[in-house]
């Protein structure tokens, strides 16, 4: 069945673990809202398990994790694995923050769909999310 015009992209934006820098995630949330998406913000200090649980209940298209703590090599694989375990790997995982280039390659191999680092223009984030949701197709 084709997606209806009323289908709105749903995104969870999340902060995980000991990372209190939430200015960036709030700017992204606002940007996505202004692009007409429903954005669920989970607040600070969530665990990967909580994010997976929330993403399943909220039936989001995309999980966006903002991470500036350096724990990305732990956090992202846990979220990807959690989704697979729940049979929810149609939920796309993206991220942003401060992540070394080598790690970006490894994380994408591990199943993270897209990573956008500092200095990414807001419009690029919107375009990226629209693109990966369209590529995944209706579900």
């Amino acid at each position, binding site marked *: *069945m084709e997606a*209806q015009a*009323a*289908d*709105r992209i*749903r995104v969870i934006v999340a902060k995980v673990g000991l990372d209190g820098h939430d200015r960036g995630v709030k700017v992204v*949330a*606002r940007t*996505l*809202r*202004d*692009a*007409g*998406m*429903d*954005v*669920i*913000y*989970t*607040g600070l*200090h*969530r*665990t990967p*398990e*909580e994010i997976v*649980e*929330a993403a*399943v*209940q*909220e*039936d989001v298209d995309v999980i966006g994790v903002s991470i500036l703590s350096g724990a990305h090599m732990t956090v992202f694989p846990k979220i990807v694995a959690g989704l697979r375990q*729940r*049979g*929810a790997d*149609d939920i796309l995982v993206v991220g942003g923050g401060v992540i070394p280039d080598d790690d970006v390659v490894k994380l994408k191999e591990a199943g993270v769909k897209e990573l956008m680092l500092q200095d990414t223009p807001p419009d690029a984030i919107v375009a990226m999310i629209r693109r990966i949701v369209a590529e995944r197709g*209706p*579900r």
Partner: protein
Amino acid sequence: MAYVPSLELVPGVLRREPRPIARLLTRAENGTAEARAALDALFAKAGRAHVVGITGVPGSGKSTLVARLAAQLRARDRTVAIVAIDPSSPFSGGSILGDRIRMGDLGGDPGVFVRSMATRGSLGGLARGTLEAVDVLDAAGYDIVIIETVGVGQDEVDVARAAHTTVVVSAPGLGDDVQAIKAGVLEIADVHVVSKCDRADANRTIAELKNMLAMGLSMADGKERWHPPVVPTSALKAEGVDAVIDAIDDHRAALERTGEIVARQATIAQRRLLRASEDILRDRFERERHGAIAGLLEELAARRTSPHSAAVRLLEAIRLGGNP
């Protein structure tokens, strides 16, 4: 998960599996036509849950109260589902749904299901698809379904026509607002909660509410009537939540005892019929705005017909269209 037809999701919903529930909630929210039969099937299975509406002005502490209620209901071994509503942007149609921020501690418990919904232009405090979402969660077997409305102003009282028990949350320090909403939202309360009672000025809010209620009592007509209690709570001190649950249970028992539950169900049925009719009309309107209805709109814009006459013709046209 590839596209699963809605009717195939129904057995999973009845087994209370999160993914089928979540997927059907999305389709209910989107008004997906394909989901109609599945939602109808679940409506037929629903009707067991106690539906509790929680409303109040923005910042009064609704989300915090809901999170505490859910934790406490779980401690009493009752399952709970929450539909939490936040506003959509009138400009972009997008939203930021922040009710989960207060509900972090509920994660990982299969006896709790939390879903955020955006109003999408719907007035009255509820979102489009809220009532269908309640059906899905009710049919899934959750004992209590809580609807947390958007932060309301004076007149958003729809939740009272959707819930068995309506809880209105008031916070201290909003004295003028209490005055302002005396003729509106406060009247629909079956249970009053005064939040933030660790604050010194909370007693004044409690007293004002009790005074308002006492005025109503003097006009009682002798029949057994439910007297809405005023329950003080403090999330900071973790106080009062048990008393809120007891008050909700007392209210449910009173509804059953007095037979008032039948009248409530009738009110809910009326509201749902009207709301569903509005949805059908709105869908048709959106779909045919540039098609069949365009001529009518042109006439109206040029003032060659009146809004009322045009509406009558519109409804006529839809009826002739064979729907319903």
